[in-house]
């Protein structure tokens, strides 16, 4: 992983942000990301992100839960240790509905949250470069990576022209690392800046 150069533009209002997003796309720049303090509906579409399919993971985990519960109880009560409970059938499917349901929900919820943390790379002890401390407070922070096509100075003046209140350049590690927030962020030592 390498350090990269980013141009950061901060917006104070969604009303300015949305037209800006459109203009950035039209100009052919590629977003690194936009950091917002709350979920701004429609921003993902505006940026051209595809829909998430995390709910599919939830469904699959749920199915695993259902299957686990039913097969396990069936195995226990019909094969491993059949108990005669008042002469009732050993394969008592209706009586297993509550546990099957609970296991479905449990597997789906736990599995989905773990999937979410994994695909978003969220975990304690895991740090990221934060482009602006107010991105979790009241600013919408648009980050564009500098490249051959996207020159730093051009980008800066472009972002000002679309309405960014604050523009700056940052050299940062784009991935995550393990460390502390309160010490100066020590990034990877490699220095092949784009």
């Amino acid at each position, binding site marked *: 992983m390498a350090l990269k150069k980013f141009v950061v533009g901060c917006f104070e209002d969604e009303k300015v942000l949305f037209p800006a997003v459109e203009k950035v796309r039209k100009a052919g720049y590629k977003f690194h*990301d936009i950091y917002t303090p709350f979920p701004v509906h429609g921003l993902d579409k505006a940026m051209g992100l595809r829909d998430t399919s995390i709910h599919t993971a939830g469904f699959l985990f749920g199915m695993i839960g259902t299957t686990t519960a039913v097969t*396990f109880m069936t195995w226990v009560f019909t094969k491993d240790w059949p108990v005669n409970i008042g002469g009732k059938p050993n394969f008592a499917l209706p009586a297993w509905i509550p546990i099957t349901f609970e296991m479905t929900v449990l597997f789906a919820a736990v599995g989905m949250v773990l999937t979410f943390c994994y695909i978003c790379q969220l975990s304690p002890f895991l740090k990221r470069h934060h482009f602006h401390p107010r991105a979790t407070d009241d600013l919408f*922070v648009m980050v564009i990576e500098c490249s051959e096509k996207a020159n730093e100075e051009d980008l800066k003046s472009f972002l000002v022209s679309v309405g960014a209140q604050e523009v700056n350049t940052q050299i940062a590690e784009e991935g995550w690392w393990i460390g502390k927030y309160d010490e100066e962020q020590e990034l990877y030592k490699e220095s092949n800046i784009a």
Partner: protein
Amino acid sequence: MSLTKYESQLREPLVNGNKTYGQVTHDIVHTIEAKPTRLWYIGFYVSVALLMFGAYSVYREVVYGIGQWNVNRTIGWGWDITNFVWWVGIGHAGTLISAILLLFRQGWRTGVNRAAEAMTIFAVMCAGQFPIFHMGRVWMAFFTLPYPNTRGPLWPNFNSPLLWDVFAISTYFTVSLLFWYSGLLPDFATIRDRAKTKLRKRLYGLASFGWSGSTKHWQRHESLSLVLAGLSTPLVLSVHTIVSFDFATSVVPGWHTTIFPPYFVAGAIFSGFAMVQTLMLILRKVMGLQDYITLGHIEAMNKVIVLTGSIVGCAYLTELFMAWYSQVPFEQDIFFKYRIAGPYGWSYWLMMTCNVISPQLFWSRKLRRNVLFTFIMSIIVNIGMWFERFVIIVSSLYRDYLPSSWSIYYRPTIWEIGFYVGTFGLFFTCFFLFAKYFPVIAIAEIKYVLKGNGESFKNEMAELESKNVDEFIQEMHQDHHEEGTVKVAHH
């Protein structure tokens, strides 16, 4: 202006005061950054003291056995299971607010969902203590888990409602915790990024899992919340349904009825909302959150209380009707001789007054919006709901089929009461810590509804509307037209 969504002026704003995003953050986070107040210390130490007394009561029960309690044959469940059902019921309002109201797109949930969910988690923690310690030999509690063991392996009975409870309560606790914590991540990140001290930055950095606010992460986060809400909704209904199965699948008059699941779920939401009211009214006062937990929020919750209270009332009357209509002598004896009359008749009428008659006062809008009245009512309802469980358990058990098995008048011992008091200690200790160190209102969610439902937006709209109807319609139309290419925020 870009119109994101038009909402009728008849709906009051969800956030009062013309707040900006920065102000919202400050209002909610500044109490975490300041030293706790004197009142907080007093409350916290009182809670810890109660918790210690509870711990001692439980210690006596574990060391000397169930004999420390006055439960007897036939009243084997007594206070212990009454408290269990009561605490589980309390938890239900939190999930209802966070999950069911999310699915129903009720914007007002955002002001109260965080604290209500915290309440759920703490209430379920309290509830779980009772059946565990009721086992007597608590060190064998893990026998309820289906793990491969050296006793055969001997598995638990999956056909037993008591085992369903084990699964239901533990799943409920886990899922509520995940739902709550995933919502907390962005707010912890907000505190982390504002932190002025090293320790705070490090701890909240740890708790926030490195949350950055990336658009893609938000997209997944929203999807996750929605699915978790979809899972929690049937889950919360199933939990109290299963708790009611503990009673309904037995062959005890007064318990053996099919009305129990809906009746218990309604009762759970009823008592849970009362507890939410108690906590919210204190919280908004102590922490100055009147702009976020508005009278509108209180009124909305009071409406839920009057609805669920009436459902519970219908259930009580249905039970009486069925006892008469079924012509089963045992059923009739339980209801007409031992429940509404007899030595425990007072508890039945206390329950009826608190749960059925008093909430009807909430049909008055003036009373629904009265803070003091709501506070008193919330406590009355919780007393009533505790007695509901007491009535169900004790009055069905104290006269068994054989007169020789009729039990003497049941009074709890000090250690039985101490256990209950101790769970209050546990609950409030947790809640005080939560109120100090956690964002008690979902910051990100409030910011999300701020533009569409805040007071400033409403004022803007009122102005627009008052100008000219045709102009207003045209402007609305234009706005939507402009947004044709970039679809803005369809809340």
